[in-house]
């Protein structure tokens, strides 16, 4: 134990122990130069350190001038010589010095001022203060410790030491901290071990390329490290936890055989709503349901839509031969061109179907969506949705539930799931997926269903399509244990650095 401690000592610590402490019981004073190693030794409980403040008295420039005699002494000598002197006749001092000297002499009760400004010495003359001061000035020329002075001298120093802003003073004080060090009981043993230790081989901290080159490392003694010391904090490059979560989800879907699709944020009402069989007067399509573009407000041309617009318009009107009676209204070909911000990830499923109507296909998208909701802890101004479809001859409702169950276990690690009936304008039957969370209980993960024939028919799809959408933000909040959706976006760096997943 003691051996370990003494092996791990830093060269500076050893130097301090060897050079500054001569015997186990000695108390020594060290200066601030050695404060570093002294603190390390204190942390290791080898020594006790008591800081001590030492105040030294020096002379100011003025003080040095007074070595040959203070103004007060000069005034006294002059009065002694002439019995009395008129203040205006004192010509050997400058105005300030004369004023100070008279002030001090009066306060020491040495002189009195008679009518006509004539100074005379008092009868009971006590010149002790003047003499002591002169002596003090002489001593202070080679600096003296304030604490070693007697009370009278201390009061004289206090009377005339230079404070900030006061220039006409004699003394200057400097404060210096020294450290009284003393070995602890454990420290005494370490000290003894250090004394016995042979440091004739060089103790080194850092192995250098030169040592390796010339082989001198063989004769070196490597200082051992203490592993109790906390390392310095560093900053590193780091992926954003939310981006990482999204990447994991993407990888899972690819591993299940899904193909990713991407699209623009600005969409037409056609793809976002009409192709998904939402009637043009549907409440989800008004100013509270979707964001409209100010300019351009409408698509100039709709090349991609044109192929399907007749079918979609008929299906809305009368079912267009899909076996549906339709919504029973005249489709507005201008409204369908209205530009909006993508309000649901399902729009990408409609586009994927239009592009790949043949079975078998599995597609997914991770799409930024926008809805005019007020922003709060669960509603971000824009949010990601995970949507997808399976186009297959043999798919049915049981297959849909099977896929949802797979998602719950793969994407949310849920062991228990349940399904409830749900409503979406574009799927029938529709279901919601719930997963059992260990602490939150049943949590809704998303919705799904079999696309209505009114959706698939106009896009030229002849087989069933199951469609699903999962609330990515909610899943991420659960996975990353975040209660406020806004914490994912635009927070200060320090807060983000502490998000640990």
């Amino acid at each position, binding site marked *: 134990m003691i051996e370990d401690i003494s092996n791990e000592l830093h060269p500076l610590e050893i130097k301090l122990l060897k050079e500054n402490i001569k015997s186990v019981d000695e108390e020594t004073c060290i200066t601030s130069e050695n404060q570093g190693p002294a603190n390390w030794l204190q942390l290791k409980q080898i020594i006790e350190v008591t800081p001590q403040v030492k105040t030294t008295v020096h002379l100011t420039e003025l003080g040095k001038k007074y070595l040959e005699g203070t103004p007060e002494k000069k005034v006294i000598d002059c009065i002694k010589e002439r019995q009395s002197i008129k203040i205006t006749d004192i010509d050997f001092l400058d105005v300030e010095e004369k004023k100070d000297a008279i002030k001090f002499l009066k306060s020491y009760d040495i002189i009195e001022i008679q009518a006509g400004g004539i100074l005379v010495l008092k009868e009971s003359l006590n010149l002790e203060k003047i003499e002591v001061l002169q002596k003090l000035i002489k001593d202070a020329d080679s600096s003296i410790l304030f604490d070693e002075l007697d009370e009278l001298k201390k009061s004289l120093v206090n009377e005339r030491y230079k404070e900030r802003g006061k220039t006409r003073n004699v003394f200057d004080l400097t404060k210096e901290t020294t450290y009284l060090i003393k070995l602890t009981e454990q420290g005494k043993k370490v000290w003894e071990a250090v004394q016995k230790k042979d440091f004739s081989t060089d103790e080194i901290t850092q192995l250098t390329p030169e040592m390796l080159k010339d082989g001198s490392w063989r004769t070196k003694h490597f200082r051992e490290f203490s592993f109790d010391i906390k390392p310095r904090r560093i900053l*590193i*490059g*780091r*992926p*954003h936890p*939310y*981006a990482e979560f999204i990447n994991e989800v993407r990888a899972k879907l*690819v*591993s299940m*055989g*899904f193909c*990713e*699709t*991407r699209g*623009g*944020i*600005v*969409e037409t009402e056609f793809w976002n709503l009409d192709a998904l069989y939402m009637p043009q*007067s*549907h409440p989800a399509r008004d*100013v509270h349901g979707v*964001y409209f*573009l*100010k300019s*351009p407000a409408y*698509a100039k041309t*709709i090349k991609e839509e044109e192929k399907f617009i007749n079918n979609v318009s008929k299906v809305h009107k009368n079912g267009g031969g899909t076996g*549906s009676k339709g919504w029973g209204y005249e489709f507005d070909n201008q409204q369908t061109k209205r*530009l909006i*911000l993508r309000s649901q990830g399902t729009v990408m499923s409609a586009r994927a179907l239009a592009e790949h109507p043949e079975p*078998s296909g599995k597609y997914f998208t991770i799409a930024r969506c*926008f809805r*005019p*909701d*007020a922003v709060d802890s669960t509603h*971000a101004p824009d949010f990601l949705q995970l949507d997808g479809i399976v186009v297959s001859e043999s798919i*049915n*409702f*049981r297959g849909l*539930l*099977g896929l949802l*169950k*797979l998602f719950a276990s793969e994407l949310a690690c849920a062991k228990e799931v349940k*399904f*409830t*009936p749900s*409503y979406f304008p574009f799927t*029938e*039957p529709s*279901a919601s997926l719930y997963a059992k969370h260990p602490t939150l209980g049943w949590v809704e993960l998303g919705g799904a269903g079999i696309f209505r*024939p*009114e959706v698939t028919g106009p896009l030229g799809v002849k087989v069933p399509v199951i469609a699903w959408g999962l609330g990515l933000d909610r899943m991420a909040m659960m996975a990353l244990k975040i209660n406020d959706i806004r914490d*994912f*976006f*635009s*927070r*200060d*760096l*320090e807060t*983000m650095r502490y998000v640990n997943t």
Partner: protein
Amino acid sequence: MAGITISKKDLESLLKKTLSVDELGMLLHSVKGELKETNGDELKIDLDDTNRPDLLCVEGIAREIKNEKIRKNADVDTEEHGKTKYQIVVDEQIQNVRPYIGGFLVKGLSLTEGGLAQLIQTQEKLADNYGRNRKNISIGIYNAEEIIFPVSYKAVAPEERKFVPLEFDSELTLKEILELHPKGKEYAYILKDFSKYPLLEDSKGNVLSFPPIINSNSVGKVQAGNVNLFCDVTGNNIEQVLLIVNIIAQNLKDRGAEIIPVEVKYPYDTIFGKNVVSPCEFKEEIKINKTDFEKLLGLQLDAIKITEELSKSGYEVEISGEQFRIKPPSYRRDIMHSVDVIEDFAIRYGYNNFEPEELNEFTVGKTTLIDPVIQKLRKLMIGAGFEEIVSNILTSKNQMLGNVEPLESIIEIENPVSDTYSVLRNSIIPSLLSVESISSKSVYPHKIFEIGEVVVSDSTVDYGTRTIVNLTALISYPEASFSDLHSVLDILLYYSIPDSKQSENGAYVSNLQKIEHPSFIKGRAANILVNNKIIGIVGEIHPQVLEDWKIRNPVVMFELKDIEKIFVK
């Protein structure tokens, strides 16, 4: 989604049994409802299916979750049709204002305070939710004792007639009602384009109501204890009007009242003819094969079982061979396709009674082409010591300080909820500066980057805009310098530009071309060129921009625009 409040006791008396809250929660799933809150007897329920106005009331929910065959006996008695002595006569001029009306009489209803409150809520929910704030549907309920039939439904000039509206004590013209009455002010928008307004009066000239605004304070005032009522529904679509008549009639019938139909005589043609009796049957029939059920659901089914379950949902079912001929109940018009009926069966069957089936389609999974590029760039930036940022795309014009893109190319939202989220960002530079502006207390150095979507104007494409992915990086600390970031940019391009060559000192030969840009210090901004094409911008941010953002340290940034175009071959 709509929310309603019902009384648990009321629901239980309609169901003739008591329920625990848990049982109720389960049962509500079958009407696509969720119990949001219970407060003593009061239950707050959210309903999902916007096509089912019949479920926006306690009676409708009770009907659906009762799990009993409910068709024949409980439905409105249609025997009376055609020989009813009660009539509404429609005036020709109403055709251009609010052309359709339907109604019925209620006899022998014991209307309690609670029952009245429910009736008023149903009336409001149907008119506000389904009827789009009374624009498409409005409903009036009156004390039938005081009405002398026939009732006439006509269009009158705004100042032609006066009556005392509900909750008032003096007569007002229709024009005054729109200006002075709270309901008048709320719903005046519906009539703003018309020079004549709808009015309903009895044969003695007593005003029943001013649809869709307000009832009269006399016959139009229904109180608990009233036994005989008259109800009318007006609107712009006769199918919607009749559906709502049917729903309300069915609700009151479920409460034990007798419903007496009323005949509406139109001077003009409707899809149901000139004389339309309401409540009515829609007489629509859907044919579904047993295999349709089986194929869609993945089940082997018994025809008897299907019939039994569907009749619990109010369907009238006839089987001929393998085919079902199905009539939906009169209070539903949401059945557009056989899949709607099949879902109703699946719900009765119980979603959790299906055995989930594993998917056995083999397909090859792939990401989009840009994804590997994004992942590569992320890894390089992180390797260079940068912390990744994810920001929102929706922002405000005020947050575009120091933007490198022209302000006029920002795409604006026509109907923002607030100014804070009213435009789409067209560059990531403001997003990262905004992170800096709130991170002055975060330990330095700051090295951050974001790879994300921005939306830019482009008049050459169909939608006038393009969504592109940019990569933007920022360094900030007291000694941050251009050369810090230049090295990062250089090595990043070396590893990501195909066939890139190293120069003698090992760096990539990136080509920078000095430009002047107000966001950067003069002489310290440059376009980044690859193969003589501008791919982005790099430089030291102007102190004025930093001051505007309240950023206290120098900032150097680069932005690579449309990385798909740059890096995807």
